């Protein structure tokens, strides 16, 4: 078993928030067409400080504090992209992306198709997502499945600082619209980030990453659940269970090749996300795995995730969110077949 937590030095350790900031900075340096826009991204540097210092260094024309309206943010970003810019929009919290839903679903996602490929919209929509930070309503949502159902969008989630640093740059240089989910409760997690190394060498943005190799069960996760699942694998190993942990990274398109290969090897699969299980991405994965690995599965694909409720008040959110114990519990159930 290899764990990414192994062999780290303190040197070059960055928080996810800072790593994303460095990634944005690099992208802006490399390409004058890259813009950052959203609410409070300027002087404040964003409520999570992901855009900290960028306005100071790149000016108000490249780092734009917008009026307070999400449809306007995405809609004008589309216009800027039509003019040759590469806007990176920040949606302040997951729950506030819905006013922009129409622009994302009916315009951003479809313009390339509508124009028979004459128009590409290299727009990135950054969304801090997920719970676990003790917030009030609308600040802990996990709406990624809603976007993964929409053809024309790429939907990705980063899981740690090193990946955040590379993936945000890849998203910006991608000619397709990318919905970029950032696990907000992991913003202050630190890992090594190689700022010197180019992103050319980094894993492609649409490829899943096997974080822990194992033989008994495949654990699929992304975003905030990556750390939880790696911890679960460590804990399970003590009980003699060998879990393979895969960070999906790209939720649309899915890297089914990596997923199927793993499940064919382990014979068991558990999908974990914070989003409600009902209607979540786990369903899509379960359906595909069940079909493609039908003769390999020793247990049905199981899912761990939020319940079929609105996100609850924060004092009980720990019961809503899958944690180490809940993940292990579902893994145990997979062994019960």
């Amino acid at each position, binding site marked *: 078993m290899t764990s990414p937590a192994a062999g780290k030095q303190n040197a070059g350790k960055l928080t996810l928030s800072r790593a994303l900031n460095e990634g944005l900075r690099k992208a802006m340096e490399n390409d004058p067409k890259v813009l950052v826009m959203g609410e409070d991204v300027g002087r404040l540097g964003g409520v999570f400080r992901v855009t900290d210092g960028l306005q100071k260094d790149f000016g108000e024309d490249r780092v734009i504090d917008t009026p307070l309206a999400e449809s306007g943010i995405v809609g004008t970003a589309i*216009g800027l992209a039509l003019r040759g810019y590469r806007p990176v929009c920040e949606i302040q919290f997951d729950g506030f992306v819905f006013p922009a839903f129409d*622009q994302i679903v009916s315009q951003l996602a479809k313009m390339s198709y509508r124009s028979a490929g004459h128009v590409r919209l290299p727009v990135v929509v950054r969304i801090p997502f997920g719970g676990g930070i003790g917030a009030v309503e609308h600040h802990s949502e996990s709406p990624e499945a809603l976007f993964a159902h929409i053809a024309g969008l790429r939907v990705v989630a980063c899981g740690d600082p090193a990946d955040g640093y590379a993936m945000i740059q890849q998203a910006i240089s991608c000619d397709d619209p990318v919905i970029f989910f950032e696990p907000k409760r992991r913003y202050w997690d630190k890992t090594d980030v190689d700022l010197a190394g180019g992103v050319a060498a980094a894993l492609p943005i649409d490829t899943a990453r096997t974080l822990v190799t194992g033989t008994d069960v495949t654990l699929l996760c992304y975003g905030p659940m990556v750390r939880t699942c790696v911890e679960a694998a460590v804990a399970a190993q003590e009980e003699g269970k060998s879990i393979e942990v895969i960070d999906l990274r790209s939720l649309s398109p899915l890297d089914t090749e990596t997923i199927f290969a793993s499940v064919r090897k382990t014979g068991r699969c558990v999908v974990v996300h914070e989003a409600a299980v009902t209607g979540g991405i786990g369903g899509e994965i379960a359906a595909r795995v069940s079909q493609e690995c039908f003769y390999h599965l020793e247990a049905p694909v199981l899912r761990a995730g939020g319940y079929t409720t609105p996100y609850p008040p924060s004092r009980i959110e720990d019961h809503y969110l899958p944690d180490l114990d809940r993940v292990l519990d579902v893994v145990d159930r997979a062994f019960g077949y």
Partner: protein
Amino acid sequence: MAVKAAGQAASPSRSHDEPPPTPQLIQLLTPEGERAEHPDYPLDLTPDEIKALYRDLILVRRIDFEAIALQRQGELGIWASLLGQEAAQVGSGRALGPRDMAFPTYREHGVAWCRGLDPAKLLELFRGVSHGGWDPKAHNFHLYTIVIGAQTLHATGYAMGIQRDGALGEDGEAAIVYFGDGATSQGDVNEAFIWASVTNAPVVFFCQNNQWAISEPLDRQTRIPLYHRARGFGFPGIRVDGNDVFACLAVTRQAMQAAREGQGPTLIEAFTYRMGAHTTTDDPTRYRLSAELESWKLKDPIERVKQYLIRSGMAQESFFTGVSAEADEVGIRIRKACLEMPDPDPLSMFDHIYAEPSGLLEEERAQLAAYLSSFVSEEAAR
């Protein structure tokens, strides 16, 4: 039941603000074909320029007629007629420079014509052969947008791009965006007003107030003249006679030049009328009176130009027959183009969704290909 009628004005004593002035309509050519002057909008056109406008008007009306006929014959799925709105579209369309960018709705066939887009491309969309599919950069004419109001934000963002490119100034560039009276109720349109105002973006909001949003009359969208909306956002609003091609040209020209020179956005309300059905599937007799239509017939945008040309002696009968013949030719040409349009290859469904190929889509494409060829082989086997 105490619901008050819409459009009822607030009692003046409550308005801590001067009451809006009575609507002023900029007009440079009367329905009778007489030239009017307006101090703010001097307009000098050569006879050739006026004839060119007339030709545009005739040709776009003809394109529209042909498309309606094609729809009736089952060759198009639907058509949104511009009948009655030719002057608003040609006047504004001809006010644009080649580097300006226009963002249309689904009804701007006249603007498309002025920008140089082949009308057959429009037919493709309404036939169901494509969702548009033209290159917006080829003629600086964006794709048709069907979701009401969405394009106003695109135009505003594009205009912010013009600012960032440093392309303002006397020779600068600007964007123009088209939308209807109904669209003014959409959040997006109002957000576009805010963005444009706050960023002082070089964008002209061109609202064709054709009095109807499908079956809903104007009073379902506003209780004051629409051009006053701009006052609430801090930029100028102007109402122009939308059936007067001269006035539409002059007003749009000025607003575009102001935008190019960094003076920010303008809202133009082109006061006009949708003479036909909303689309070919609509039946306006269900919701509006023919008297209204009759009264607007007297304000026809083409007839007044013709009268002016005749009275001023600028054009002879031969000119009119010439244009008419040209219109027939255009009609024949686009009909032919429509009838010859092949259905798309079913497998093209998977094209152009992403810049990079996607494994999943390639798989699905292969699946559909195999499925389709299974029928071919079945047939072959018979």
